[in-house]
């Protein structure tokens, strides 16, 4: 069972800045981490490997600092790590990102499964998983909360629904995205961390991937971020007057009016 895990390095600090011109996150600094949902994806891949054998490959598109996150993936047990890195990729939207990732995954060789986190905590779109599946021509199941069984050519899973869950089967190879409820990611071991410092991270640029640079980056991305703004929060307060009974009646009336009751 060969699994590819898609990882994104995201800002680890809570105070994040948004570039007012481009509307994108200001990156940089050392306080980065692996997107938490991607940690769940990696953990699930590790568990599949421990149960069924095979290997785990971690892949990321990002700046060269993202090597640190890939190193962390190796410390946690990933067998290999690939960074897709090229100045031409800067500013790629989810479509362009998925396109680049799909080429990277093809270059790695067809895996049995690709696992993504359900979304990133910086972009929050949740689009890369399904887009990637489409571009790879593979089936996709989102929000997987449990892998029940893996058998020859298919996988049976639970996916989270608003109330309860769906049990779905998917043909392999396929792509899934996972929610945080699926597992508790392990912590690295000291030996794993020390070995990962020496591990080599494969880096592929646009040319090596065969990416048409006109189709990626901020210029080539079909998606355009128009505006990022803080939502206006309006809280209205109203104090009810009168006796307790009349206040209760007024309250019930207002709740009915608002169609809450």
């Amino acid at each position, binding site marked *: 069972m060969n699994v590819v895990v898609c990882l994104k390095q995201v800002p680890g600090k809570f105070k994040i800045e948004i570039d007012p011109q481009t509307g994108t996150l200001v990156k940089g600094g050392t306080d980065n981490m692996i997107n938490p949902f991607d940690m769940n994806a990696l953990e699930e891949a590790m568990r599949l490997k421990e149960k069924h054998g095979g290997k785990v490959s971690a892949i990321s598109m990002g700046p060269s600092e993202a090597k640190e996150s890939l190193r962390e993936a190796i410390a946690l047990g990933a067998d290999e790590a690939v960074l897709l890195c090229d100045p031409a990729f800067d500013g790629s939207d989810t479509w362009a990102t998925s396109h680049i990732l799909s080429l990277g995954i093809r270059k790695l060789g067809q895996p049995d499964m690709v696992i993504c986190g359900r979304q990133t905590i910086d972009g929050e779109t949740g689009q890369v998983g399904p887009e990637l599946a489409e571009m790879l021509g593979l089936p996709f199941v989102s929000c997987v909360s449990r892998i029940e069984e893996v058998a020859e050519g298919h996988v049976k899973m639970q996916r989270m629904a608003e109330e309860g869950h769906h049990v779905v089967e998917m043909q392999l190879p396929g792509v899934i995205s996972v929610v945080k409820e699926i597992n508790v990611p*392990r*912590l*690295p*071991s*000291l*030996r794993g*961390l*020390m070995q990962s*410092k020496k591990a080599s991270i494969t880096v592929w640029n646009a040319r090596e991937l065969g990416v048409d640079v006109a189709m990626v980056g901020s210029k080539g991305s079909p998606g355009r971020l128009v505006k990022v703004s803080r939502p206006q929060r309006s809280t209205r307060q109203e104090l009810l007057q009168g006796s307790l009974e009349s206040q209760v009646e007024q309250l019930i009336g207002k709740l009915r009016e608002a169609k809450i009751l």
Partner: protein
Amino acid sequence: MEYFLNEQQQTLRSLARKIAEQRILPVRAELDEKEEFPWELIREMASSDLLRIFIPEEYEGLGGGCLDLCLVMEELSRVCGGVAISYGANALGALPLINYGSEEQKRKYLPDIASGKRLAAFAVTEATAGSDAANIRTTAVRANRHYVLNGTKQFITNGGEAEIYSVVVMTDPARGSRGASALIVEKGTPGFSFGKKEKKMGIRASSTRELVFHDCRVPAENLIGREGQGFIIAIRTLDRSRPGVGAQAVGIAQGALEASVEYARQRIQFGHPISAIQAVQHMLADMATQVEAARALVYAAARTIDAGAKSFSEEAAMAKVFATDTAMRVTTDAVQILGGAGYMRDYPVEKMMRDAKITQIYEGTNQVVRNTIALELLKRKAMRE
């Protein structure tokens, strides 16, 4: 301050901090309240290799030294002194084996301790003996290929949870401290049982119990070192472990300092945060200075040991006394800065103050440890004359 840790030590420290913050912090109040031994956390530390660091590489360890152990103790204690000492007492139990065990004993026990399969503990204290180790009453009588143990050890950290005990007993009571020997006793040996679990003021996540020996037969090959070496093994083991208690104290104090700074910036009185009041600022400044001084002394003592110094009783004793007295002072001041909130269990500093107290007591009370320092000091002067 820059302590020039090597790459592995830096990695070790940040790994220990990660475990402390991600795994220990969410459960520390509950473990304290319920006096629950942190098995799940111990297993997590084992799978992260933290139990391997102080074991030599030949026995599946990572060959780290006293400083490596101190870094882990400090980081764990910054969040919970109780979980930290469960970790530390295991290392203490392994030290007599590492330094005085036979090749067979090391091969038999150390790999299990390294992997976390079995925990270790060290037992000296009794109802009539603690600081006065010569007054140990537990006896071990040689009978052919066995020793037969009788007596009761008390206040044994990791008691009941550990499986490998290094126990100091009297093999020749007539010779006083020269009649003491160290023996390995495994949990499950017939005649070896556990007495009551103590209810403690602090470090409540840790287990403290009596070890009861009643005609307990232990194979003669479980003797550590030679007969009559028990007292020396105990003293030298404590010399090696005291910087670890110092590191525990530094960690507890660091946690209290951080909580104080955070609270002082949030707590508004007279229209501004209390961190704007100079009286509070000076308290914080003193706390920070004392913590850093304690850390520097603990690391220096640990490095002295790791450098292979022949004698380090004095350095280890100084690190223990200074750091633990500092922890008591700093945690008391932390409760003061948090005021009413500091006294409440909803905030972490009252626990830190309770946890700090034991560090002045165990592995040699600070009074007895001062005797060690004074003795070395005066001995040196006398030798020059």
